[in-house]
């Protein structure tokens, strides 16, 4: 057999592998017809570092809602499916969820996945609460997509402002992954930098499968930045920050939400020490809307458990759907309008202010600047 034949075998088999889907689901019991919510998340693959925490928040929210009598007497149920962190899998999976009677969709993890399923939820008229920061997801002219997160404009502006206020940095370098999260963040940084008086002197992309970030660091440092912004997927935080540590980089650094969560910090190890992050929840001083969630998490994982934006956004997505279904009285046709009427909802991650023209929900007031100290994320500053 020739090398070319092996290559063909390898490619065909890799495609087959990519097409293999491993579904998982969980549902809560109820006495009357449940209101079903479909969840797309990367339980395996690159986003899996985040998925367990997000779905934990969702499950706790469903249990809390059902424990309090459900939504107008109907229990909520979750159908969680694994897209293997591949946006290309989301189209098929979201169709299955909608066909199985989901009232709403939560997820997926990647902005490119949300963009991929957008036409399907629009056609089916099923609202989707997405926890991506990718700006474009709420700018597609699709009224059925809502954001349960801050967007990249808010996050990048906060990062730039903080670096300027705290360190006087007016020249910054950006390291980003070449997926929707990273490229959207990079574009937002470029467009926001001028308005806050900061210059982007280096803009370095990395593959989401990168194992070494040294070339990008060398290129970025040659431009003499005063601070570095990391807009990379959680799986790349480790290679990026370990390369910085091995090159003995001493610049102040701040990461986006792909960094500012306990599981990402744990995965990076000592190289994360001293790095700042853009988060939504101060683990030692969670907002009022997160009190019940924190209590439940500590009941489940122990009293030292640190809540992050991941559990908070998962919790909020379910609670927002519950509130919407309550206001719509379970009528799927009225759910969109009901969600748009949630104009001042105190969630675990911040205050959501949806309207018919604003599906972004959270703003700059929700931002928490976090700092890694002794391997833990500590609240550093609320708002910017």
């Amino acid at each position, binding site marked *: 057999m020739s090398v070319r034949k*092996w290559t063909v075998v*390898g490619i065909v088999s890799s495609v087959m592998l990519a097409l293999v889907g491993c579904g998982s689901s969980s549902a809560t019991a109820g006495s009357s017809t449940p209101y079903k919510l479909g969840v797309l998340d990367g339980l395996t693959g690159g986003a899996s570092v985040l998925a367990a925490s997000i779905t934990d928040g969702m499950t706790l929210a469903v249990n809390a809602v059902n424990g309090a009598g459900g939504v107008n007497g109907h229990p909520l149920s979750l159908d969680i499916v694994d897209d293997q962190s591949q946006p290309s899998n989301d189209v098929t999976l979201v169709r299955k969820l909608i066909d199985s009677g989901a009232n709403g969709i939560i997820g997926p993890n990647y902005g490119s996945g949300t963009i991929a399923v957008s036409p399907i939820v629009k056609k089916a008229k099923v609202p989707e609460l997405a926890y991506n920061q990718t700006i474009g997801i709420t700018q597609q002219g699709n009224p059925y997509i809502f954001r349960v997160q801050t967007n990249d404009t808010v996050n990048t502006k906060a990062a730039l402002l903080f670096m300027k206020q705290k360190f006087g940095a007016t020249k910054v370098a950006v390291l980003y992954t070449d997926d929707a999260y990273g490229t959207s963040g990079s574009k937002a940084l470029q467009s926001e930098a001028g308005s806050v008086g900061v210059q982007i002197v280096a803009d370095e992309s990395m593959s989401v499968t990168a*194992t070494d970030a040294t070339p990008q660091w060398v290129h970025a440092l040659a431009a003499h930045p005063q601070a570095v912004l990391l807009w990379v997927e959680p799986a790349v935080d480790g290679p990026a920050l370990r390369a910085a540590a091995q*090159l003995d980089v001493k610049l102040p650094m701040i990461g986006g939400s792909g960094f500012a969560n306990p*599981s990402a910090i744990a995965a990076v190890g000592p190289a994360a020490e001293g790095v700042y992050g853009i988060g939504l929840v101060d683990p030692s001083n969670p907002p009022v809307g997160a009190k019940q969630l924190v209590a439940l998490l500590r009941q489940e994982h122990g009293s030292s458990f640190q809540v992050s934006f991941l559990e908070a956004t998962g919790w909020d997505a379910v609670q927002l759907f519950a509130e919407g279904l309550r206001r719509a009285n379970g009528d799927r046709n009225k759910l969109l309008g009901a969600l748009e009427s949630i104009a001042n909802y105190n969630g675990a991650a911040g205050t959501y202010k949806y309207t018919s023209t604003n599906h972004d929900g959270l703003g700059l007031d929700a931002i928490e600047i976090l700092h890694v100290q002794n391997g833990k994320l500590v609240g550093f500053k609320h708002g910017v």
Partner: protein
Amino acid sequence: MALSTGFEAHSALTQLIISGLTLGSIYALVGLGFALIYNATDVINFAQGEFVMMGGMIGVILARAGAPLPVVILGGAVASALIGAVVYQGLVLRARRATVATVVILTLGLSVVLQGIALQIWGSTPLYLAPFTAGNPFHVLGGTVTYQAIWILGAAIASVVLLQVMYRRTQFGRAMVACAVDREGACLVGIDTRRMALVSFALSGAFGGLAGVLIGPIASVSYNEGIGFALKGFAAAALGGMGSPAGALVGGLAIGLTEASLSSYGWATWSDTGVFVVLIVVLVALPTGLLRGRAERRHTAAL
């Protein structure tokens, strides 16, 4: 406020070469594993990347248990060597009547199984290893060299040299070469071809496990890291010349340098694509690879 980077790069080109050689050495170690198994069985073992992952995972466990560095390195390599031996005895040998293509598919399936096992045991959060040698990096010709890079490059070169010495200077190594050239012929002169294949799988696992431990302080050790290393390692072996240890080293370094070049000049998005474009171009021009690997064998029946 004056801010210092703590680091001044004088030569992006030097740094590119250092990074390329570091990553390339890892690909070379994985490529060596492909070459060994291919020589012994004609099989392209796509579970090779899982040897890397398993080696890294075992290394992390040993390091966290407080084991000294030699135990961490050897432990990762030996664990993957054992997995390699079990894969041969439990899977490849039993499927010896199947076609080579079928066995290749079996190794792909095995790769998924091993990933699943790793996910269940260690979870999805990436793990890491501390650098083998502490201390700040040093500067050479305007580039920055970390001690870990020296470890990686040294291990790759030492592995290739040891393998070449074994092939050329030992009775056992010559028997392995005989199997690679003509397995039926080797069998007729009394060489235990199954034993050779078993040792090849074990050695292949050891090289993969060693790569997994070595890369731990640079990349993350994760249950799903294997397939990326498998593809690059396969490319390294094919580019250098399938079946040739020196070819795996040359191919690995060429791939590492290609990847680092694209990343250094703002083409990181194209780094994976670039690697395989180079592979395709070289194999079209030189079907047996840069160092003329083993020609296609006509008798492939006996495993």
